């Protein structure tokens, strides 16, 4: 008799998810799904608000990536009112974004991913967490705290708040950077770069020592998508590049034209939609985003240390790098880029300028903003009436772009590791770890309130609940 396993919610990700694993009569996994059961409706309840409220409203989508929403939103507003931010304002916005990348990527690797990697997928869940990491490697844990704090401080010193800032405004930013704060940021960069390089050593050593796991753990082909700037990795402003599963260029398009290239599929078992490349259709047009996607589409990285590491990453494969576990390596390479880019931005002669706002307001009725959030490509698209009142909103959120990939990863890992007749916590943790490779933010992707205990349910072929496990 077939059975169904449910893991709900998944731990050490941002938001609330449930995984169901359907077992056949032989106890083997037949199929698996990652369900997102939350719904918030930001697209709908933003209607009727003034466009300039959106950079304040939309960061409330999430407490972990408010900066990304803040910036994507304000870029959409720039477009909407025809106000191109002066160069210093764009530099400052990018600097805020680098702070976000550093705190988010560092937090993910050291706190969320490292327990699985350094302590083992089968380690006792009671110690398979950040405290276990501290006991195993206290120096590494201290560096993690410093990295997270550095990123948060950049955000706070620029915008006045660590989350939910009211700083970027249509046409620029509302406050310039003081020399004191610039000097503080510069003063911490070398140490930050060193800490990230230490993290890179950790993940590289692990990946090299566990190649057998890497190759059988959610390793699959797909298209890839990410922003580039003259072919280089770009996180703030540039065209979006799509490549196919062999690495061949499919498109490089203006982010504002995304609707010509990206379409979303709806399934009745999840609130999270499935974006795909429109011209190839579903499912041929599926792609991956975020660090692995971005590094796979890029030709180079514009900062020296990250580019050196990028060369090693590219040497891993003749085509795109496919194993999901390489997301962790790619994430830290981006982290390194963000730290180096922070230095470049702080040393730019315009960074302390007071020329930070273009006050033009010529409402066109439509605006699109795009940014590479830590978790992938993020679009905000607004429509307004002639007065700037929002009449429509479309958000394609970073995590949503990886929805197919996370489901694929869950399915492959469940098939490889889950034995319905001999269920262990380690098996279930592997399924969660497959999702964690993608560092999903499900609060964002469903635009979610909610708690996140973990429940695993086992159903037989007739749909009757056989067993249930819960963690919180």
């Amino acid at each position, binding site marked *: 008799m077939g059975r169904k396993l449910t893991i709900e*919610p998944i731990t050490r990700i941002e938001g609330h998810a449930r995984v169901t694993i359907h077992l056949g009569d032989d106890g083997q996994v037949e199929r698996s799904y990652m369900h997102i059961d939350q719904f918030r409706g930001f697209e709908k309840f933003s209607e009727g608000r003034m466009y300039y409220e959106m950079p304040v409203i939309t960061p409330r989508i999430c407490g*972990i990536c408010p900066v990304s929403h803040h910036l994507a939103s304000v870029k959409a507003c720039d477009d909407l009112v025809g106000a191109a931010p002066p160069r210093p304002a764009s530099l400052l916005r990018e600097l805020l974004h680098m702070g976000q990348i550093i705190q988010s990527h560092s937090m993910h690797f050291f706190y969320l991913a490292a327990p699985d990697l350094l302590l083992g997928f089968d380690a006792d*869940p009671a110690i398979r*967490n950040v*405290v276990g990491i*501290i006991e195993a490697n*206290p120096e590494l844990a201290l560096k993690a*705290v410093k990295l997270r704090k550095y990123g948060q401080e950049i955000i706070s010193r620029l915008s006045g708040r*660590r989350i939910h800032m009211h700083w970027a405004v249509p046409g620029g930013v509302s406050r310039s950077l003081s020399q004191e704060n610039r000097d503080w940021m510069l003063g911490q960069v070398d140490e930050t770069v060193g800490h990230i390089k230490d993290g890179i050593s950790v993940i590289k050593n692990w990946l090299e020592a566990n190649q057998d796991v890497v190759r059988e753990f959610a390793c699959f082909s797909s298209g890839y998508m990410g922003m580039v700037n003259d072919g280089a990795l770009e996180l703030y402003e540039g065209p979006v590049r799509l490549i196919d599963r062999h690495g061949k260029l499919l498109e490089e398009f203006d982010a504002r034209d995304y609707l010509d290239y990206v379409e979303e599929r709806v399934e009745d078992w999840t609130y999270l939609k499935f974006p795909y490349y429109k011209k190839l259709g579903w499912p041929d047009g599926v792609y991956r985003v975020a660090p692995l996607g971005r590094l796979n589409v890029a030709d180079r990285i514009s900062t020296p240390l990250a580019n050196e590491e990028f060369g090693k990453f590219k040497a891993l494969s003749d085509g795109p790098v496919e194993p999901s576990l390489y997301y962790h390596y790619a994430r830290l390479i981006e982290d390194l880029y963000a730290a180096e880019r922070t230095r470049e931005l702080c040393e730019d002669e315009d960074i302390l300028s007071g020329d930070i706002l273009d006050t033009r307001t010529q409402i066109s009725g439509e605006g699109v903003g795009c940014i590479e959030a830590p978790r992938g490509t993020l679009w905000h698209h607004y429509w307004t009436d002639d007065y700037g009142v929002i009449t429509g909103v479309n958000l394609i959120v970073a995590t949503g772009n990886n929805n197919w990939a996370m489901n694929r990863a869950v399915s492959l890992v469940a098939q490889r590791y889950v034995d319905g007749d001999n269920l262990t916590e380690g098996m279930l943790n592997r399924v969660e770890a497959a999702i964690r490779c993608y560092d999903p933010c499900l609060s964002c992707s469903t635009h979610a309130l909610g708690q*996140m205990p973990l429940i695993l349910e086992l159903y037989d072929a007739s749909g009757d609940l056989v067993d249930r496990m819960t963690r919180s």
Partner: protein
Amino acid sequence: MRVLLIGYGNPSRGDDGVGHYVVKEIRERAVRNISTLTLCQLGPELAETVKDYDLVVFVDAQVSQSAEGLSVVPVEAAYRPSAFTHVMSPASLLALTKALYQKEPQAFIVAVPGYDFDFGTGLCDETTKWAEAAIERILEMSRERE
């Protein structure tokens, strides 16, 4: 004794902003030995700050429908994997501080009853009343430790 007062919660969700309110009121009284922080949520980076204090007081709204009055409870270092990974409980934050820095400040949670968590700033009358009681209790705790 160095005292750190952390008021946290979402000030855009009505009574959830009571931690911010309490901190603001105490800041205005400029109590010599109390340092203050207002946050939307607790994160792991706070461990580096918390380690430098002898007493940490967390102020938050108490959501429970059965909340009866002001609750002041000691909090011990105890790590529990967080459901929301980007936030930590006071107990987990203290556990992190202890593990990282071998520092274990005395800590209390001052939980103020909240009744209205709808969108908007400002506290309802009942929560404001309990917030005033919280302020007095925190000042008393500080005086006791001077």
